[in-house]
């Protein structure tokens, strides 16, 4: 029984649909009330989208942001001081209609050009800020964009301020021809001067960052961050597809792809970005003085007793033995990890980044084994590829630029032995580290926590001081390899271990290392405090004794240290 046809309807109703709709003051959806997500297609209430920093609340898609909104989201209220808003562009090629087009865009967007520059405070930390806006000719770089960025760097160099640029661009501005191309060189040169003055430059790559902007100031940050999913590349994906006649794989040229290929230090969400930038700025401020606390009297752990060298080999490879990440977490709670070698890849066998220790900024680099098989596969069992060593070197150079001590944790069976490692120059990468570390103008400390296998370990251990855990080992190759080469019998590894003189005590006797960290029996996560206390005290002493160091002097002493062997 269908009740619907039996009920009598409202007396005044004329069948419903005949009611006049959308009178002048009747219901209507105002323009811009909703946004449609380009990814999931969901209709989103604009006010909600704005509160969500223009990230789709349904699928997490990042909408492009207007420069002004971006500045509001990053800078402290009312602190932005805009620079150079009225530089007049030229029309070098005499492109017809170019001036008209610019004028129309200015009207429409309230922008004067594709980048807004100036300075302001980020949670109280001063910084120069450049923000590009895609609405203005796809934020292509013409002479005005190049000039504004260059002037910002010049002023920042003069005023000794850090610079942060949010990039987004289709590339060079075709209408300005070769003059546009020259902006790449001009901006890069200004950044070089700023960098040579020891100043910090951070780029935040947003969707899309391509062409001449990628190939100049976008990729020159000391620290390069990216927003999730941002398209980043030199050639655009369509151009590449047309050229090579192939379909590009999913995720190609996205921020995550760039990070995995070594070009992005970290991917940071919009919600976290302001705090993240604040931390970076704080790490790089001069006023970070070393303030060591009073060390509590350390009770040295009871030693494990008489162990053979082979016992130590086995202990150093033990599956419950803490790995570098555990020490980093204990010693440097504010550790901020950076990724990538800026050439090929981010090698997870090396973990590196910046942190503070007793108020002093330091660079921390570690050969990083995993806690379990899954993590170990990810970290390649702590065997770095050339990309890992190059990442380490990149971070050491960064430390040198900003005058930060470098603390390395050494824990590797050896450098990775594989096809790709050789193709990318494993030998060259190790050699380069020895070469560069020997003259690094900042204090370098290396701590061998477990296994230090051959050149793969030495590539993080050309240092002012080398310490070694009591049951760690340090050798030219594995005992198994030694037995196999010398005696053609890898089963005689335990015998080899004794002959090789690879224990911490042997190293001390041979003056290879400077300090032994005493270990409790069965060192593991539960009793890690015993060694962490010694490390804390030791690192405090190391940094303290190198306060106000002279870089040349350090390099000279390091030279002499290795000269004696």
């Amino acid at each position, binding site marked *: 029984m269908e009740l619907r046809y039996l009920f009598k*309807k409202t007396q*005044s109703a004329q069948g419903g649909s005949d009611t006049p709709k*959308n009178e002048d003051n009747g219901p209507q959806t105002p323009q811009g*009330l909703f946004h449609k997500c380009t990814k999931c297609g969901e209709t989103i*209430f604009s006010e909600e989208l704005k509160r969500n920093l223009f990230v789709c609340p349904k699928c997490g898609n990042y909408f492009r942001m207007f420069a002004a909104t971006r500045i509001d989201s990053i800078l402290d209220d009312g602190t932005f001081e805009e620079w150079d808003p009225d530089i007049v562009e030229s029309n070098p090629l005499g492109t017809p209609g170019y001036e008209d087009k610019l004028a129309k865009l200015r009207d429409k967007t309230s922008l004067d050009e594709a980048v807004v520059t100036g300075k302001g405070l980020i949670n109280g930390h001063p910084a120069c800020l450049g923000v590009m806006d895609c609405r203005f000719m796809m934020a292509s770089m013409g002479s005005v964009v190049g000039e504004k960025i260059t002037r910002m760097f010049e002023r920042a160099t003069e005023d000794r301020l850090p610079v942060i640029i949010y990039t987004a661009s289709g590339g060079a501005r075709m209408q300005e021809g070769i003059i546009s191309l020259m902006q790449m060189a001009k901006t890069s040169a200004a950044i070089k001067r700023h960098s040579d003055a020891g100043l910090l430059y951070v780029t935040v790559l947003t969707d899309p960052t391509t062409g001449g902007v990628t190939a100049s100031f976008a990729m020159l940050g000391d620290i390069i961050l990216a927003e999730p999913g941002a398209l980043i590349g030199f050639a655009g994906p369509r151009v590449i597809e047309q050229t090579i006649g192939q379909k590009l794989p999913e995720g190609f040229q996205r921020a995550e792809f760039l990070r995995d290929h070594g070009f992005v230090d970290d991917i940071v969400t919009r919600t976290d970005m302001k705090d993240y930038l604040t931390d970076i700025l704080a790490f790089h401020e001069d006023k970070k003085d070393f303030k060591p606390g009073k060390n509590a009297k350390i009770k040295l752990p009871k030693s494990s007793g008489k162990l053979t060298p082979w016992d130590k080999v086995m202990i150093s490879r033990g599956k419950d033995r803490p790995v570098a990440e555990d020490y980093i977490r204990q010693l440097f709670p504010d550790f901020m990890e950076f990724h990538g070698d800026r050439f090929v890849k981010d090698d997870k066998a090396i973990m590196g980044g910046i942190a503070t220790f007793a108020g002093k900024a330091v660079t921390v680099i570690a050969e990083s084994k995993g806690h379990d098989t899954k993590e170990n596969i990810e970290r390649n069992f702590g065997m770095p590829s050339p990309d890992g060593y190059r990442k380490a070197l990149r971070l050491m150079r960064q430390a040198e630029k900003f005058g930060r001590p470098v603390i390395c944790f050494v824990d590797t069976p050896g450098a990775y032995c594989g096809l790709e490692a050789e193709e990318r120059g494993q030998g060259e990468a190790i050699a380069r580290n020895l070469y560069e570390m020997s003259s690094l103008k900042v204090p370098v400390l290396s701590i061998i926590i477990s296994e230090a296998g051959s050149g793969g370990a030495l590539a993080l251990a050309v240092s002012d001081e080398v310490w070694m855990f009591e049951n760690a080992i340090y050798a030219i190759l594995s005992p198994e390899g030694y037995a196999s080469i010398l005696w053609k019998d890898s089963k005689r590894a335990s015998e080899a271990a004794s002959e090789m003189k690879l224990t911490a005590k042997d190293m001390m006797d041979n003056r290879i290392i400077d300090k032994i960290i005493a270990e409790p029996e069965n060192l593991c996560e539960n009793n890690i405090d015993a060694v962490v206390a010694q490390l804390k005290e030791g690192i405090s002493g190391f940094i303290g004794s190198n306060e106000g160091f002279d870089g040349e002097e350090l390099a000279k002493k390091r030279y002499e240290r290795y000269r004696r062997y």
Partner: protein
Amino acid sequence: MIKKVLIANRGEIAVRIIRACREMGIETVAVCSEADRNALHAMLADQTICIGPAPSSESYLNINRIISATMTSGADAIHPGFGFLSEDSRFARICERCNITFIGPSSEMIAASGNKAQAKKTMMDAGVPTIPGSAEAARTVEDGLRLAEIATYPVMIKAALGGGGKGMRVARSKDVFTQAFQTAQQEAVNAFGDGSMYIEHYVEHPKHIEVQILADKFGNVVSLGERDCSIQRNHQKLIEETPCETLSEEKRRAICEAAVKAAKAVNYENAGTVEFLLEPSGNFYFMEMNTRIQVEHPITEWVTGIDLIKEQIKIASGEKLGFTQDDIKIKGHSIEVRINAEDAEHKFRPCPGKIELAYLPGGQGVRIDSAVYSGLEIPPYYDSMLAKLSVWAPTREEAIKKAQSALGEVIITGIKTNIDYQYGIITSPEFISGNTDIDFIDKFSRK
């Protein structure tokens, strides 16, 4: 004046709103999900638009679809009913931006009421009594003792980071405070790693009393008496009545005045309900403000003779209230019993299914608000309330008799309902005595 209303709801409240509109000559648009094509509201309205699949998120909670339906149908107002989007400030805001009359308060008021801490502060500032206790947390026994004096005993000590009853203790007097504080704090430290404790007056055995108010655009606010909603299970009201049997005339005036003050403090507009906890001592404390029509509104309509839905529509149309506080005369006694599709013998789990036969009573002083009919399939996706039976009589005693008689006539077969359970309550001496509080159901169930 509003010409056409879209009802963004389902069930008996949608039917109730359609009826009010029809009487006012206002056209109605129902929206329904695919599971509700045969629902009464969908068949009763002048026009019906199916807005999506059965899950609420795809239909009754989907703002975009409801706005689209409004635009297509040419409706100029939306009545949100209760539940669903009725207290979603974003929905109200979108209606405002689209020039659709939202029959209810403004989005700002909804948002402000939704922020409990802020609302409590606003009420304190306006002189509406709130549960004594400070926003400051105590870390030491001395601090705690000081704050407990302000809160007045008995006090509830609770962990600032608390939850799940951990780090909570009641101290009835100063003598036992130290011990209770230390135990609670220790628990809090163990459980949450933090020993900050809030001290608040502990409201013991209260009644849940709420006051219906109506407020127009011109700042006129009237209260329409209180409702005693103490009979509830897991914060779900089961039986409501008005007036409250144990409230003295003087207290009634005080509590109603407090409600008006609360509404004025936020410049409230449209129908709203101010909820209080009433202690046996007679002290009462503001809990929250509900910015919508309530399920139990019929009992207020019975004793005041005012049609609250029609008043909502008139207020939303910009009309002045047609009466003042002096015109409001509470007459007689009214009781509402909720009839739900649930299995009282198995932890009140919902029991959807096909209704074979629905026989609902009538007669003088008996009102049924329902959306069920014989042969209707109750979908499993929504609230389990099937019908509300409300009665009116000159005295409470007569009203209870009438409720018993009418409820005894209700027949719904094919699915399990709570009719027998409710019948048990309204025939029990404890209920009849009128001396009930919010722990009533706990005690009743244990019996």
